């Protein structure tokens, strides 16, 4: 019984760092660009398990998607002020675009 508890505690201990290290980042869509802390970004390096919130700050709709092998998603179109999120679980590379404005493109590198 004691052994089982110890194993459980040890396992929990191993899991905690992974949970703590998963981050939430907000990428805004502003002036038809992807921005991190108000600066335009075309590549972004994150860790597996991180979640990106795609927040639309333009006065028109955006539709964020990726058809990458790593992660395929279509967030649909949404207006200013709304945000939708994607968690990147596996390492690799994903191109994320706006379907409506294809000049908006960011490469997400997941470590």
């Amino acid at each position: 019984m004691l052994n089982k508890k110890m194993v459980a505690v040890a396992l929990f201990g191993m899991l905690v760092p992974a949970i703590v290290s998963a981050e939430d980042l907000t990428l805004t869509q502003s002036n038809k660009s992807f921005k991190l802390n108000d600066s335009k970004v075309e590549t972004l390096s994150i860790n597996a398990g991180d979640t990106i919130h795609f927040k639309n700050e333009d006065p028109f709709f955006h539709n964020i998607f990726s058809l990458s092998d790593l992660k395929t998603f279509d967030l649909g179109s949404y207006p200013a002020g709304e945000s939708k999120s994607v968690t990147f679980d596996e390492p690799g590379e994903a191109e994320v675009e706006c379907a409506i404005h294809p000049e908006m493109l960011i490469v997400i590198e997941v470590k």
Partner: protein
Amino acid sequence: MNSSTFYQKSLAKIVATALIGISLSLAATSAMAAEMKASDEDTQKYLRPMTVPQPANNMMTPERIELGKFLFFDPRLSGSNFISCATCHNPALGWSDAQPTAVGHGMDILGRSSPTILNTAYQRFQLWDGRAKTLEEQALGPIVAGGEMAQDMGSLIEELSAIPGYIKLFEAAYPGEGIQGVTIAKALAAFERTIVSTDAPFDRWLKGVDGAMSKSAIRGFGVFKGKANCTACHDGFNFTDDGFHNVGLNDMKDMGRYKIKPINILKGAFKTPTLRDIDLTAPYMHNGAYKTLQEVVEHYNGGGFENAGTLSPNMKPLKLSKKEKKDLVEFLKSLTGDPMEITIPQLPVK
């Protein structure tokens, strides 16, 4: 109170009222005059640029532009030797063809209208579905497409290489590069980058020229940016967001951008075209559905058809009054630039 005091007081009241009335109407007049002038923000946003973006590997030179112009007007670039780029992109028809949809090889009627090539230099994506990014990428597409100019590229290179006049023109434009698909595309792109807007009444109005635009057109600009929200897609000097939208035409035969990027919202979506010189390029829309600008305005006023369940969320009934619709059309007409002077080249025949 005697009658004289009463009279004086009444007079003072009348004078005061009249003065207030005058000052109010003066304020209203000056407010109206202010609205009739372009704001600094408008000037910054909509005034046409004086330079054209060019790729480093194909900077424009007079020789490249000249070669491109020769090729553009040369029907020998088609399999039938009968269709040139200018057949569908005719400078006398606003660099389009006045047909609802293009006519291709063997007089076949094609599925999409010939877009104007005006200001394509500024576009981030070419063609109605944006499948080419640059003019160099786009240029050979219609030449080799079976339905359009139906020209085998190998045969074209042989044909042009047998004409000494062309050998000289290619050597002057692209020394040592020879007559190749790549140099044909580059030369056509260099020429197309010269086909840009000239000053329109709207530009003169932006620069502060009195009487450049009618009052109706100026009001129409207000409708365009405001109640009609046209700027959600048609914005900036070239009046496009370089984006792709399903604007709810009653026609879903063509899935448009969806064939290039299979994302739901792109079903029936096409590139936002420029509105510059729009009065010269009827009929309108990717399928030529509307003959007049009035019909186009009526379409947007109605909010479009919910055709594939992917109607752009920017499309909503606008409830424009008759006057607002008329003003909007007047504004669109004010985007017509001064006529361009185009000389047709004498092509080398041997």
